[in-house]
């Protein structure tokens, strides 16, 4: 017996999310097929974007500004920052638009709506894995061998993912009512790319700015990525790390709560 009652929360939410796992599978599959098989350049898009960003940033920050790279090849430093950044940026922007994109479905079919962001997460992880392959090639090229610290790598992927999804869920909820957020998100991401240590090392930030700088949750995450891969050259950014861990957990929890509180009204307001 199932009861729908005014003002009451949906019953067995997580259970019904699990029951619809085949929908999650086919939504993810749809996005991957459309992206990887049917667009003209296909898989290379996922590689071209971070690769070109890396080239441009390496020229600007490495060759022209001549910033310090702790003895590492500058291209590698940048690429190890570009990857987590794009993982975060893609997940965040896609999640924030996910309800608008699936608006037609939202109004015609019931499913736990968290399934849309969940599919985005899976697609984003596949994209990340593909571009990560390029980083591995790069490490071979520069003879960079990872040490045991590499075991922390999944932790930083998880942090980037949960920060992006958490913030994305809040933006998606607001987006349903105020479409302005659709304009705001790309702008925020554009700024974020420069205030996060993507094209440079966060070690370059002056000491008295360090605390302010660590307030950007991406600082700790991106530093963590580089540290995992090359612990001998890149010191761990402890202050930023603890903050980022806290932030990523809080963002996800708050995001899910906000999303779920507004969820039952989505079909009416969208």
């Amino acid at each position, binding site marked *: 017996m199932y009861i729908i009652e005014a003002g009451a929360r949906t019953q067995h939410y997580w259970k019904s999310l699990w029951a619809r796992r085949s929908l999650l599978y086919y939504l993810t599959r749809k996005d991957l*097929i459309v992206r990887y098989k049917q667009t003209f350049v296909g898989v290379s898009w996922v590689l071209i974007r971070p690769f070109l960003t890396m080239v441009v940033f390496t020229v600007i920050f490495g060759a022209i500004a001549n910033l310090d790279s702790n003895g590492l090849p500058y291209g590698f430093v940048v690429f190890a920052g570009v990857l987590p950044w794009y993982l975060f940026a893609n997940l965040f922007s896609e999640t924030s638009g996910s309800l608008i994109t699936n608006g037609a479905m939202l109004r015609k*079919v*019931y499913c736990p709506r968290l399934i849309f962001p969940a599919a985005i997460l899976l697609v984003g992880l596949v994209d990340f894995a593909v571009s990560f392959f390029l980083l591995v090639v790069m490490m071979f090229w520069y003879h960079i061998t990872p040490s045991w610290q590499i075991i922390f790598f999944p932790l930083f992927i998880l942090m980037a993912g949960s920060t992006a999804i958490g913030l994305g869920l809040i933006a998606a909820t607001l987006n349903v009512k*105020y479409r302005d957020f659709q304009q705001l998100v790309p702008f925020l991401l554009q700024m974020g790319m420069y205030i996060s240590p993507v094209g440079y090392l966060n070690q370059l930030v002056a000491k008295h700015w360090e605390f302010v700088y660590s307030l950007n949750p991406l600082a700790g995450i991106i530093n963590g990525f580089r540290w995992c891969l090359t612990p001998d050259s890149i010191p761990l950014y402890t202050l930023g790390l603890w903050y980022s861990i806290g932030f990523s957990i809080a963002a996800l929890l708050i995001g899910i709560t906000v999303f779920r509180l507004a969820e*039952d009204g989505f079909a009416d307001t969208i």
Partner: protein
Amino acid sequence: MTFAIKVQNLSKRYIIQHGTPAGSLKELVEHYRRKFFYKLTPKFKDAGPDPYEVTHEEFWALKDVSFEIAKGAKLGVLGRNGAGKSTLLKVLSHITEPTAGRILIDGEISSLLEMGTGFHPELSGRENIFLNGAILGMGRTEILRKFDEIVAFSEIEKFIDTPYKRYSSGMQVRLAFSVAAHLDPDIMILDEVLAVGDVAFQKKCLKKMEAISNSGATIIFVNHGVEAIKQFCNQAIVLDHGRLVLNTTDIDQAIALYLGDS
């Protein structure tokens, strides 16, 4: 007799907002700015009417509706445009939340408010069957099991690996109906879905629906075509301006009321 669905004092209110057509941030900010200055400076009143003023109007799409559907019954929902039929189906399908009242549901519901929801033009017919099946609530193994049957029913075997966007509109609806027709839920909600394909295919659809209903499923059915309801349903409700005006097993009486109404 046990019920499949019991609706108790169901109401659904929509707020119609005048003044913020786009609902954008700018208008929200402007609204509060004006409200603020309005309080500070009495003269502000003379500046003319506030173009950003927000007024609310209530609209009850459903008001205090109660009825019961027995297991295996076929309920036809009649009513003019705006009577609340679609809202009722949306609330029953869990797509939108009721404002008051409650619904008890015994069994698994599948609802078809629109054919082909979620079909993707770039994907092949095959991929779309899986995607749409999953959207409608089928599991992977269930779709695999019914796959051949679905393809055969839609009569598009030859084009199953062609992208959906290359299909004629007739082929598109046929494929969409075929997936939908192979759901076997305990309760099925249908909104005007029979108007698909040519006459021969429509007959096939009606037959399929009869087969589904004969298997013991409960069906809730909205259609403007009175004939289909007469032929198909054994219970009918008539809605008018969000209120339930008749609930009967005498289909002819319901149809007479509905036709007299309009």
